[in-house]
């Protein structure tokens, strides 16, 4: 055992569709340690959710693991069948979904939905399960848990429902929590509170968490490490400081530059030209090349490997090759990094 809670080794996931094989996740490797929050960012359709669901094995029937392995807590679960997976789901693995308005069963009281998860994995009496559920509701910050235990989800606001979903996810003391756009559907003030809650839970329970989002701000707030995904691949991974203040991949530059805070002088937002590629027959070479103004000839021919930048930081771009011309990150990003270093 390497002390990693979760290890993905060269994982590739494909969907069989009538139009061909969609390579949703391509050759992804990452590690997650206990008590660590890994943020995963990227555009819609870049494989963030598929990656998480593949670990939970919640993907539809036409998806399959093409290569690579998934190791949870030292156990290789790549070939686990449904029965074995059910032990893991809600056991070691848990997931919080995007839309709290629809992820709770509307007709079953909140409390029952939590005790159900508890009793699925532990043989406890109804009273014990109830006590534990109320404890969980307290933990996620639902006041008057005793009373609200009996209420159906429609009595709750969106933020409270997401708290309940988190309570459900925590019911059986998971080791890894996937938060799949857990705050995207919430308004910003509520989002802040939920993010604080996730941080709080992480410290209390020493969970490993994978936090998927396309909100760079939210990721910056919670994540210890950040992985940037593009077209099914991780293009840059490192600590949050590495990614936010010393990004190396042109795609990460593009993402960060499009933050409203870094808008152009006239207030126009920066953006990345073009669209992500369709993942049926992905282009050879670097999938980002066509949208990359720093692209070189080799980017269209050969896929860049992961170049280590530092011990914690690596990025997949030919710009880091020693033969490549020196290219510096966009000026607005450099200014920001300088500012940050001053504060330090």
């Amino acid at each position, binding site marked *: 055992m390497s002390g990693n809670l979760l290890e993905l080794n060269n994982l590739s996931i494909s969907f069989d569709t009538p139009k061909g094989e969609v390579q949703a996740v391509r050759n992804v490797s990452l590690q997650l340690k206990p008590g660590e929050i890994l943020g995963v960012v990227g555009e819609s359709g870049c494989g963030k959710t598929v990656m998480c669901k593949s670990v939970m094995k919640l993907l539809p029937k036409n998806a399959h693991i093409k290569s690579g392995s998934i190791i949870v807590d030292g156990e290789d679960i790549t070939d686990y069948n449904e029965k074995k997976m059910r*032990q*893991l789901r809600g056991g070691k693995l848990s*997931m919080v979904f995007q839309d709290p308005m629809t992820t709770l*069963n509307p007709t*079953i009281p909140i409390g029952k939905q939590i005790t159900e998860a508890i009793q699925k994995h532990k043989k406890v009496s109804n009273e014990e399960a109830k006590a534990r559920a109320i404890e969980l509701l307290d933990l996620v910050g639902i006041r008057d848990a005793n009373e609200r235990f009996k209420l159906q989800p429609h009595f709750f606001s969106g933020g409270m429902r997401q708290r309940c979903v988190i309570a459900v996810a925590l019911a059986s003391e998971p080791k890894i929590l996937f938060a799949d756009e857990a705050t995207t559907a919430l308004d910003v003030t509520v989002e802040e509170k939920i993010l604080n809650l996730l941080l709080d839970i992480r410290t209390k329970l020493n969970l490993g968490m994978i936090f998927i989002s396309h909100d760079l701000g939210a990721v910056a707030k919670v994540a210890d490490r950040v992985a940037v995904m593009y077209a099914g691949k991780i293009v840059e991974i490192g600590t949050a400081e590495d990614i936010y203040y010393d990004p190396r991949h042109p795609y990460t530059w593009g993402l960060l530059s499009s933050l409203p805070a870094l808008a152009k002088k006239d207030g126009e937002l920066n953006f990345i030209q073009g669209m992500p590629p369709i993942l049926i027959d992905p282009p050879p070479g670097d999938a980002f090349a066509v949208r990359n103004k720093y692209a070189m000839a080799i980017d269209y021919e050969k896929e860049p490997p992961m170049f280590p930048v530092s011990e914690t930081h690596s990025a997949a771009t030919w710009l880091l090759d020693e033969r490549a011309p020196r290219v510096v990150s966009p000026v607005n990003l450099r200014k920001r990094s300088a500012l940050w270093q001053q504060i330090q």
Partner: protein
Amino acid sequence: MKSKKRNKIIKKTIKYVILFVIAMFILSVVVFILARLAPGDPLQAFYGEALDSMNDEQIAAARARLGLDDNLFVQYFKWLGGALHGDFGLSLKYKMKVQDVMGPLIGNTLALGITAYIVVFVLAIVLATVAALHEDDLLDKIICKVGTATYYIPPFWLGVVLVLIFSVNLGWFPSSGAYDVGKQNDLGNRIWHMILPLIVMIASHFWYYAYMIRNKLLDEFRKDYVLLAKSKGLTRRQIVWKHCLRNVGPTIVSIMAIAIPHVISGTVVVEAVFGYPGIGNLAVESAKLHDYNMLMTTVLLTGAFVFFASFVAQAINEQIDPRMKVTKEIRW
């Protein structure tokens, strides 16, 4: 708290009783007028062939005697007055009081209809759940194919075939009637007579509902909360039984409420094929022969059934899903 709740129930009951009276009143007026607007002569039903040999005077006298020459208003209120006192008038075809014609037959139809109704829905829910659990597997496909096939077998043909096989050739079941002569109090004998008609009724109805419930369940299974339930580690079976079926519950109950008149009126064909004495035939005949009073009674009876069923369905649905409660706050 408790007395408040009781007050609420009383209020609700009163509300529904008033609604019931209004609904029945409107229904009776509409049916009354429609029946009389339809072309045809009720005297035909009363006198049959003899009508041709009657002269105008006799016909006018007959009309006056049967109260058919009053204007609609008078006719309606005469009928209403009688009905409120439990007298639903004279059946023009049978020349007896409507309740005397229907009395002995209604039990037969209800026994057949209600048994069929219960079996149809138990079967429909079980098959729908099994099919949904095995979505797109062989079992699901077999259930769907066989179900669709049975649904499209015409009931009158199935009835005749069943009679041919089980009565004529094998002699296991009687081919007609509701009981053997002199055995009308023998429950076993009645059940024995009911089996073939029941099979026909069930075969012609269950798949319609089963398929509806199956698809509804599958819709439900695509919802987000199923993902959360799955990520808790629940099995597909647990999710379908504990989560989906419960959420489909209101739909099933509503379908069941609507299905009551449907299934009961389904007895018409069966009654005809098996010579089963029931009111299904009466209803059809009364419409055909302008047997006004009989028509009114059968329609109102069905209407009352539907009303009562939807009332019960609403109450059950509120229990399953409290969001369905009709509250004062909701205005449109």
